[in-house]
């Protein structure tokens, strides 16, 4: 075979990854658009080890080569994630596109990533040297770059099993299908004993990476809903100041306006 490797097992894939300069290929929907006929691909999309969805006490593990269509059919995948991936492309794209590819392509427009950022997801990365588990937020360095070593593969995405019942998701695109996100927004909210314990908001497609501001979220943590309502104008003002957005297919001003509208709408949904 010229310009490619089809490993029979994950072990073989890791050996090739360690010894050759290869690009991991799972679904191909992003890679093939880049048209690199000389690329050496490592075809990992059909490795059974990367195609499983499993659960442990704390996390749902979504294999890197699980497709969006497969996740939509699985009752264990949280509704928030389904809301996001159901809006990706169209059936043929969701049949091919994978969770690992969406992360590995390192685009801020990747529709599954804002959900992962808002949900405090982790990534399990593997190599012949062993494995490491990293926070999704710390994985990205900037547009198109991330923390994956040249000998590593993304093995799974770990989504928390609890705390994702109160969520909000919205994607703004040019049309209902086959639309690249102009803005995507995911938020997760949680309370314990009338006190806010989580108010995570992640903004996709508006900067080099997905944005989340934990210090701003801290304004609401520990507050009651009534207190949070009083804080709301200051909270939205703080986001207004912090959201420094890039120009893209749409203007930075439009992006900011929509981001703030979505943030406010999400708070309203959570009763704030």
């Amino acid at each position, binding site marked *: 075979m010229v310009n490619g*490797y089809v490993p029979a097992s994950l072990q073989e894939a890791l050996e090739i990854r360690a010894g050759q300069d290869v690009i991991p290929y799972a679904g191909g929907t992003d890679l*093939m658009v880049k048209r690199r006929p000389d690329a050496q*691909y490592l075809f990992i999309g059909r490795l059974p080890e990367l195609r499983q969805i499993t659960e442990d006490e704390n996390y749902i593990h979504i294999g890197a080569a699980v497709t969006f269509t497969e996740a939509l059919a699985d009752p264990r995948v949280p509704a928030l994630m389904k809301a996001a991936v159901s809006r990706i492309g169209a059936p*043929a794209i969701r049949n091919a596109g994978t969770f690992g590819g969406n992360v590995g392509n390192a685009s801020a427009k990747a529709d599954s990533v804002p959900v992962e950022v808002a949900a405090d997801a982790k990534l399990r990365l593997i190599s012949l040297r062993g494995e490491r588990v990293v926070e999704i937020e710390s994985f990205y360095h900037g547009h198109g770059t991330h923390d994956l070593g040249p000998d590593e593969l993304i093995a799974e995405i770990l989504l928390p099993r609890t705390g994702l019942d109160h969520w909000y998701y919205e994607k703004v695109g040019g049309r209902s*299908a086959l639309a690249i996100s102009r803005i995507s927004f995911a938020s997760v909210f949680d309370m314990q004993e009338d006190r806010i314990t989580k108010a995570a908001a992640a903004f996709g497609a508006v900067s080099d990476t997905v944005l989340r501001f934990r210090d701003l979220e801290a304004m609401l943590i520990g507050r009651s809903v009534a207190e949070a309502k009083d804080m709301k104008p200051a909270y939205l003002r703080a986001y207004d100041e912090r959201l420094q957005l890039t120009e893209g297919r749409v203007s930075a001003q439009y992006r900011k306006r929509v981001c703030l509208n979505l943030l406010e709408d999400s708070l309203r949904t959570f009763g704030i």
Partner: protein
Amino acid sequence: MAELSFILNGSRVRYDGSAADRLLDALRNEYHCTSVKCGCGEGECGACAVLIDGVLHNSCCVAVGAVQDAQVVTLEGYRETARFQALDRAFAELSAVQCGFCTPGILLAAEALLSRSPHPDEAEIREGLSGNLCRCTGYNAIVNAVKRAAEEGDGLW
């Protein structure tokens, strides 16, 4: 390294080119399956749709290496089936074809839909075909044709 081969419309074929080549180009240029059209080259129009192991894919976004040993079906293979005949009749009766460029991809998207959901309602049909652009018909004739094929081809799917 193992040779690159897959099963195209029921027959095993060998591919001597690069594993990084687009399946779309291999199908058209190497195997002359010219029903597979290149509309956009970015996975946004569905004109190059094929079935890989029964699942709908845009062949412009698939490298040949990714279909090693897989079953690839294009319209050239699908047209030999009774299911195709049902769709073909319905599309002709309801004038669901004008220029025809999108039609092979639409038919395979319809097959993928009906094999999963043999009696789809209109919303399901529109969702199933949402990745296939047609610039001629305005879609209504196509949606009606898929619905009629599902009714008149009842039992085929």
